[in-house]
């Protein structure tokens, strides 16, 4: 898609993948951070991670297995927390531990068996050997995430503000919430190979947290978070490949550094003179 700008095919694919993954994750990240349900993103990420590891072990396509695993978590999350009569956070904590254990089990076992399968991209991501189909899939999910926010902007805004108030206003909160879970599940699964299961959470949370330091409206958050995410990810991918640096960790470190700077510079935290 961007071959007319970047002649090197590997760099071009890496930049495209990072661009689309960062847009999808950061747009959805605004919703989950504002709803204080970041642990859902965390659990979904590790469900995709576990699904991919198990899928590879059983000879399936890692991405398809990741999508299935994270969708399963998305489907069972609501009913499970209702049936178990426990706080959603506790359920998420248990699921997260379970998913991490499954992922580590299969990765360790494959290493022990010497299957020759390289699982490091599941952990740390890999932007070098990407298939064109993977990039198209990421482009589609990033467009879907943006369309989701544009179509249901007022409903999402109300749900972010307060779920109970949104419901009392006559908004159907549950379909919006499940659509959000569905979008997160697909986005993190498709981004897993590029960013890695251990770092993906950074893309979901940190750009939104950086934008939050400067934005005073929800609309601005949805504009600034993907802009920050895309700028840092694309620049990081380009610089990382030029200098043979690990791209995912490099971008994650830059995100974290930017967050600290944003907190220090945030006009929201400035105390007005005279107070």
């Amino acid at each position, binding site marked *: 898609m961007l071959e007319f700008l970047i002649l090197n095919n590997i760099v071009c694919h890496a930049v495209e993948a990072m661009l689309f993954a960062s847009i999808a994750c950061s747009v959805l990240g605004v919703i989950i951070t504002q709803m204080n349900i970041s642990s859902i993103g965390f659990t979904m990420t590790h469900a995709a991670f576990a699904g991919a590891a198990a899928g590879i072990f059983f000879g399936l396509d890692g991405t398809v297995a990741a999508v299935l695993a994270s969708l399963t978590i998305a489907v069972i999350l609501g009913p499970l927390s209702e049936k178990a009569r426990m706080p959603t956070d506790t359920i998420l904590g248990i699921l997260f531990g379970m998913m991490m254990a499954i992922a580590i089990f299969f990765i360790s076992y494959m290493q022990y068996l010497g299957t020759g399968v390289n699982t490091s991209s599941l952990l740390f991501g890999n932007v070098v050997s990407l298939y064109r189909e993977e990039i198209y899939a990421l482009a589609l999910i990033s467009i879907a995430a943006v369309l989701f926010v544009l179509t*249901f902007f007022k409903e999402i805004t109300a749900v972010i*503000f*307060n779920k109970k*108030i949104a419901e009392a206003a*006559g908004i*159907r909160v549950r379909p919006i919430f499940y659509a959000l879970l569905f979008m997160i599940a697909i986005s993190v699964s498709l981004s897993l190979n590029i960013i890695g299961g251990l770092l993906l959470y950074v893309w979901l949370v940190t750009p939104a947290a950086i934008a939050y330091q400067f934005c005073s409206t*929800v609309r601005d958050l949805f504009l600034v978070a993907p802009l920050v995410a895309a700028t840092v990810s694309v620049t990081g991918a380009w610089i990382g490949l030029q200098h043979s640096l690990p791209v995912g960790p490099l971008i994650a470190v830059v995100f974290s550094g930017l967050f600290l700077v944003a907190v220090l510079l945030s006009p929201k935290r400035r105390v007005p003179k005279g107070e």
Partner: protein
Amino acid sequence: MRDGTINLAGVSTAYEGSDRPVIRDISFTITPGEFVVVGGPNGAGKTTLLETVNGMLPITRGRATVCGLDVASRGYEIRRRVGYVIQNFAFDPLAPFTVRDVVMMGRYGLLGYGRRPGEEDRKIAREVMALLGIEDLAGRPIGKLSGGQQQKVLIAQSLVKRPDVLLLDEPFSNLDLGTRDFICGVLDGIADEGCTIMMVSHAFDALPDREVRVLVMNDGHLIFNRPCRADEVEDHVRTLSGGHHA
């Protein structure tokens, strides 16, 4: 024509995922334009009663209708015609929501999916903010307002849908006397226009000077249901709650 009739016939309600009813076998009829005060001790089921009327909790027994609509099957339609001001709200001072945003949210359910608020919606929001004296705060972040101002914003949010029924849960908690009297006057005017008002409150000195219906809840049961003068409400509730009310 407003139809704020509320009818409950042998209604029991449980929280989602639980089989144990929180309110049991509640029956009453409220006619359009009535001003209802719900009293009773802590944990009596007052908030649960409001959420039942608003269709936010599953009805396990009996039948409830609000505005002529069945609560169990048409909860979303009811919530588009019923304003509900929740209790115990707390907003992050840095939250990215202005007063204008929050008030306008009250219209979202009416608009339906895919439709953005138009000039008519904005006009109604401006009128309601003016009614509550918060038009000057329209551009301010809600998290940075005082408790009383935030309460006015939430009442404005529930009024922009031009409700047939207005449910309020402890609307006078943490308000100074002046703000209480002001809001009480606003509610009195709304009831005069035919809107049914159902309010959980223990601020019985902040009631409009009119006949009100008193419902007293205790341990999930409705133990008192009678119209009386505003100045008699406190005596009834205090006596029936064993000297305690909240």
